């Protein structure tokens, strides 16, 4: 029992080795590798269930000879909260990968993909059950580097190389922040273990500020909080889709987990921590979805939605922190439960969306939204999966996204009703922001779904697309079913949430959030579905009663010869909304010059590069690089100069230190 999770980690870590069978036996190796991942995931899921009910049964505490290290494995409800989606999504992704990235189609890198996939999953699981900083960081980096190798799978393409370098640099920046964080924590507590008790009492104000800033940067970089999200769109867009699903669905959440876990060390955090997190959440949420609106690349668009959803999670977590600072358990419970449930939900629906997007890419060979269209008829299962994912990610009832957003909303309304100025400000800022985020998400996903799956195909390749096979639709079905289950019966997951929240803030009562109203929500959802059924049945009955003519073109206000090219494009659809946010998004337009009565053929092209990366970080690099290069003038090859440096060093050192 104790070794359930470590066994799962070992199985997944070694799964890729099984995949290294010689080319003749590649398919067997592939099946073996995926089988191991699935087996490991099953053990892991079992372990995470145990973690909810009997955390102590999974505790492992062994000495480890490295300085400061201990093999301290602890699976409490908080870990389980993150472990469960990890294992679920990774198993789904692994099965999907069998058909999406087989050795037969990718002889050069499919084995590597499977190897790194297993390692990444193992790293993720290690992060989640480590209760010692050294173990945590080992898991952290295995995860990050495994994902790096996965992102760089198709490194022959320059775009992929760029994305993987940006990812590597970003993840290292985060890891270094964590070095600092744990170093500082060690300086305060004298230990690198997570069983710290209250840190706050022993730390000075400056140290507390430092700790939070380091944690926010380190974990925020991984989570992709705006403006630390720079690596995210490129990495998600360029990785194989099941990897994108794993990264977006689970890997980002490690940043959230880190924040949740480490803030739990502080029973009364400074108020500004929560406020800062809420601020980050609002910015990430709104700008994330705004960026998503302007994207042409299906997977980049989904990636920006991850930024948005992480923003929602940060909003909930920030609310919980504010609640803890102010001693308001209602805020803590609702905020945290909302954030944690959204971790599950986002893991499920974003993985679903990425898998569906991957199916589209697999079938059509393009990620360009404006080249797609009409896939709903050609890939009905994929289209349905994407529709479910879209409705869920927009936070619309009756699916799961709504439940977590509802919890956050309830917390925000609660905060807004508080007499404390910081609390009601958080509520007054958060609730409308969340509403705006939701509405923009609807706009964005209607756009994607409409342009990709509805209407007519915009290119010949798309026209010939076929539905993907069962290995790919199966995982999508499983994820979609999970979305629906949580949406329709949210009360089922409340005990788990309550335990996790209780682990985070022991002062909370055993029950967080309005379980009763969630039961009512199920009823309301049932009513909604019933009404939909009734209306649909009526319409079907009427359609049968009166003849329906189907074989006609779209009316199009009487235009006789509409072509697919005349359809509304994704860019046009989002143009007005993107225009509203132009101050932050800085979209660029390439407008053809039309001159004369018979102008040349021209193409309007808009693009929405990442502002933080494109306008801030890369220019900064471009600025600093030559500055540093200028320093090189100091070593122009003359040995005289070098000797002079030594003389200067001797004289200066003797003058300074004697």
């Amino acid at each position, binding site marked *: 029992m104790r070794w359930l999770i470590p066994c799962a980690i070992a199985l997944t870590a070694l799964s890729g080795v099984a995949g290294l069978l010689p080319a003749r036996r590649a398919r067997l190796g592939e099946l073996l590798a995926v089988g191991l991942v699935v087996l490991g995931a099953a053990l892991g899921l079992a372990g995470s269930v145990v973690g909810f009910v009997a955390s102590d049964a999974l505790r492992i505490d062994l000495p480890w000879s490295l300085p400061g290290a201990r093999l301290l494995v602890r699976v409490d409800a908080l870990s389980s909260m993150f472990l469960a989606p990890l294992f679920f999504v990774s198993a789904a992704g692994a099965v999907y990968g069998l058909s999406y990235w087989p050795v037969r189609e990718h002889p050069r890198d499919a084995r590597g993909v499977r190897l790194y996939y297993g390692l990444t999953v193992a790293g993720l699981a290690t992060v989640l059950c480590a209760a010692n900083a050294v173990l945590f960081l080992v898991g952290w980096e295995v995860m990050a580097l495994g994902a790096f190798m996965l992102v760089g799978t198709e490194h022959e393409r320059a775009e992929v190389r760029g994305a993987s370098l940006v990812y590597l640099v970003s993840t290292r920046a985060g890891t270094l922040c964590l070095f600092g964080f744990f170093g500082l924590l060690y300086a305060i507590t004298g230990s690198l273990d997570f069983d710290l008790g209250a840190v706050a009492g022993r730390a000075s104000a400056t140290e507390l500020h430092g700790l939070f800033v380091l944690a926010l940067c380190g974990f925020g970089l991984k989570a992709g909080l705006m403006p630390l999200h720079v690596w995210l769109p490129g990495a998600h867009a360029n990785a194989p889709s099941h990897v994108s699903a794993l990264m977006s669905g689970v890997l980002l959440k490690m940043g959230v987990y880190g924040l949740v876990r480490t803030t739990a060390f502080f029973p009364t955090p400074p108020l500004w921590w929560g406020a800062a997190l809420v601020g980050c959440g609002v910015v990430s949420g709104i700008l994330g979805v705004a960026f998503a609106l302007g994207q042409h690349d299906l997977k980049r668009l989904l990636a920006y939605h991850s930024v948005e959803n992480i923003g929602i999670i940060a909003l909930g977590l920030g609310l919980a922190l504010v609640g803890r600072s102010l001693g308001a358990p209602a805020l803590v419970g609702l905020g945290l439960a909302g954030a944690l449930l959204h971790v599950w939900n986002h893991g499920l629906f974003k993985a679903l969306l990425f898998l569906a997007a991957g199916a589209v890419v697999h079938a059509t060979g393009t990620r360009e939204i404006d080249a797609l269209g009409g896939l709903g008829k050609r890939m009905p299962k994929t289209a349905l999966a994407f529709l479910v994912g879209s409705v869920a990610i927009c936070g619309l009832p009756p699916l799961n996204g709504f439940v977590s957003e509802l919890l956050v909303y309830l917390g925000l309304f609660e905060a*807004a009703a508080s007499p404390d100025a910081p609390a009601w400000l958080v509520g007054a800022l958060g609730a409308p922001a969340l509403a*705006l985020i939701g509405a923009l998400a609807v706009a964005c996903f209607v756009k994607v779904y409409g342009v990709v799956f509805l209407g007519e195909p915009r290119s010949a390749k798309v026209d010939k697309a076929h539905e993907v096979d069962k290995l790919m639709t199966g995982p999508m079905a499983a994820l979609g079913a999970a979305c629906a289950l949580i949406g329709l019966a949210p009360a089922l997951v409340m005990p788990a949430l309550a335990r996790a929240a209780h682990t985070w803030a022991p002062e909370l009562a055993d029950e967080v959030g*309005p379980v009763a109203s969630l039961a009512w929500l199920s009823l309301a959802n049932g009513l909604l579905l019933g009404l939909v059924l009734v209306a649909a049945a009526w319409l079907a009955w009427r359609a049968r009663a009166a003849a329906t003519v189907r074989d006609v073109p779209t009316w199009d206000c009487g235009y006789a010869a509409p072509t697919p090219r005349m359809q509304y494009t994704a860019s046009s659809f989002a143009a007005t909304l993107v225009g509203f946010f132009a101050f932050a998004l800085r979209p660029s337009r390439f407008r053809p010059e039309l001159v004369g009565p018979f102008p040349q053929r021209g193409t309007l092209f808009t693009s929405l590069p990442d502002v933080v990366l494109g306008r801030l970080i890369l220019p900064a690099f471009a600025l600093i690089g030559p500055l540093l290069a200028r320093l090189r003038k100091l070593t122009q090859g003359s040995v005289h100069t070098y000797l002079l440096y030594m003389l200067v060093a001797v004289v200066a050192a003797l003058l300074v230190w004697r």
Partner: protein
Amino acid sequence: MHYLVHVLLVLALPPLLLGIANRVKALFAGRRGPPVLQLYFDLAKLARKSTVQSRTTSFVFRAGPVVALATTACAAMLVPLGAHKAPLSFGGDLVFFAYLFALGRFFTVAAALDTGSAFEGMGGAREVTFGALAEPALFFGLLVLTRLGGAVRFAVVLGPGLADHWVEAAPSLVLVAVSLFVVLLSETCRVPFDDPNTHLELTMIHEVMVLDHGGPALGMILYGAAMKLFVLGAVVVGVALPASSGNAWLDWLLFLGGMLGCTVLVGVVESIMARLKLVAVPKLLVTACLLSAVGLVLLVR
């Protein structure tokens, strides 16, 4: 018993409201106008008609009207009519209510895009754009109401306590009522946001999205739109007219009176105002948002 009345009113009354609004407009224009019950006749006729569907469309096209109507009907079950409780009430029903409309919008716009027509795409784009701006305005209003009421449910915020709050926080509530009314006009696609009477595709929002629908589906759309007006009107009336007479049946009459007033107001606005230019629409919605926000600030000051 009263729940039954609630359901009956929700099902039967909406088309009448549109008839009244049209009659008001006709009066303002000095015309006689169509009969007040015209929409009932239209719906009956549409339900019997056959349909023409483009070969481009899929099941999503038919799901649009279905979901739009179902979400509105579901929302109607959440809103207390006057002093009477709603059949369905739970913590967070306000949020559920708001998101139901978003769900309806999602499928309406998806259905529009399913036709592959540039016109309907354009309409869809406008719909989601203005919807995105109306949402924060609605939530600012809800914030004010929940802060006054102390819980996130219609039963509380529009409950008996509201009358007392009118005494102490009248300015905030006035602002919120106005803001909600603006949201109502926007959500139901009335002037000054949209003109339900015009058929000039390029300037329309809602009408242009449903160009390809016909027959029973179009009937569902029209019925759903009317019901939406009814539901949102009930919310506005609930905020603006929190009076309770003590007698249950008298309360129903009071509510109907309120609805009549609200509908007449819609008609009046429609008669005395011109449709806004599309670029000016966001400004009005932001104004509504600010009104509620000011209401909130007044409350916590």
